[in-house]
């Protein structure tokens, strides 16, 4: 297994009350998979992502990537944040080059790499703009280009489209799906949007809160051409709704 989480538990003490963010969570992920961690707030999906990305440590259990225990963030596994995390004093190109600087890529090559990935996310011509001058969707595209520029093995995405409007969000979902196929990256994507998860994932890890745990892992056998209104899509979406007990009772009766 490429990514292996075994019996991971994590508690916080908040206002004197103990809060179980992760309760004995185990999960295996293959190389190249697109995994969505789906669940309501407090289900531990972000905690699990942060543990995988190396930003947080679990209290017990193990988190391994490629056989090695995760202890700190690594430039091989890039995290995309909801609020983009672009450096506002750097222009778009300099932002994309950020990771290349620590990788000691020569200056002459950096520009070409930045160019390549800005083109991939549809932002060529924006090199000299500053983050402030871009829309939220464009800023997240820059962050994605910045992540891809260092050629990571895994991309962690923590509700990356959560702050965007619905149309922009769908456009970015299509783009990230395309990019994940073209670049063959392993992607772990946190979301609380059921449709987003069904549209993107090869497998959906459905999580529940209090304590944070995995309720079920749902395979999404929809291939690479996904149609939001297609029958198969709706079928998978319905299954997820059922898992969250969110289908109206009469609807279920009608179904039976």
């Amino acid at each position, binding site marked *: 297994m490429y990514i292996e989480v075994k019996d991971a538990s994590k508690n916080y003490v908040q206002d004197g009350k103990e809060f179980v963010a992760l309760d004995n969570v185990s999960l295996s992920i293959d190389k190249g998979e697109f995994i969505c961690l789906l669940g309501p707030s407090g289900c531990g999906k972000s905690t699990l992502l942060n543990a995988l*990305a190396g*930003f947080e440590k679990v209290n017990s259990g193990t988190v391994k990537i490629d056989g090695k225990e995760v202890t*700190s*963030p*690594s*430039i091989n*596994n*890039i*995290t995309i*944040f909801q*609020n*983009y*995390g672009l*450096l*506002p*004093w*750097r*222009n778009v190109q300099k932002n994309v080059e*950020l*990771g290349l*600087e*620590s*990788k000691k890529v020569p200056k002459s090559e950096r520009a070409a790499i930045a160019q390549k990935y800005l083109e991939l996310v549809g932002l060529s011509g924006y090199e000299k703009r*500053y*983050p*402030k*001058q871009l829309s939220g969707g464009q800023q997240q595209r820059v962050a994605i280009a910045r992540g891809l520029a*260092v050629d990571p093995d895994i991309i962690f995405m923590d509700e990356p489209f959560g702050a965007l409007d619905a149309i922009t969000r769908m456009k970015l979902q299509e783009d990230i799906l395309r990019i994940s196929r073209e670049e063959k990256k392993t992607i772990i994507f946190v979301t609380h949007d059921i449709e987003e998860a069904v549209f993107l994932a090869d497998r959906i890890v459905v999580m529940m809160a209090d304590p944070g745990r995995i309720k079920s892992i749902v395979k999404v056998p929809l291939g690479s051409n996904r149609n939001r209104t297609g029958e198969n899509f709706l079928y998978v979406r319905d299954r997820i709704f059922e898992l969250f007990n969110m289908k109206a009772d009469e609807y279920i009766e009608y179904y039976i």
Partner: protein
Amino acid sequence: MKKLLSLKNVIISVAILILIWQLLFSVSSYDKALFPSPKMAFDALVELIENGKLFENIRTSMYRFVTGYFSSVIVAVVLGLILGRVPKLFQYINPAVQLLRPISPTAWMPFIVLLFGIGDVPAIVIIFIAAFFPVLLSTVSAVGNIDPVYLKVSKNFGIKQPALTWKVIFPAAFPQIANGIHLALGTAWIFLVAGEMVGAQSGLGYQIIDARNNIRADILLATILVIGIIGILLDGLLKLVEKVILKSWGGAA
């Protein structure tokens, strides 16, 4: 248009000030040598320019100011960047800072003169003290207020010290640090005059004392005006520098 309007405001404002001064002069029963008219002060200013005394004193004062202010800003920013990243250390230093901060820099004056004698050093030290605390505290707080996502991104992309400080922490904190630097400029300029009145035999502050000793109130008031004007110019210059830096950083503020 906006600039023209503000120029109009300045002219009106200054005109009102001179008018009130002239009015007070007309109704006052003080000796002319003790309470001169605007015209007399202006004549004194021309006299000071012509005999070269004014520019000599400005040069002396500016040398002290620039030395004291810049060395203070540099030391305070560097210390602030370090202390801001090590809150555990700062919590032991902060009480001492809070104890020293409310003390007027002039209170140190006799002590400094005892140690260093009369001359450039006391004025420079006073300016250093005056600028130090606002810059230090604003830098520490600016570093503490940096959006944590910048630090997460830096960690993720393998940015280590010292690159972390100059690539991420300093620019992220700069707008708030600039506030402190700006605030300190005004304070430092105020205390330059105080420092020179007590601890020097030259400079604009001393020129005021010298004018008093010679009962030349016209020179005294002319000097005060010059001090005010230089203060405004310094402030404008710093605003310009800030603007240029922020602009080159894409208006990060």
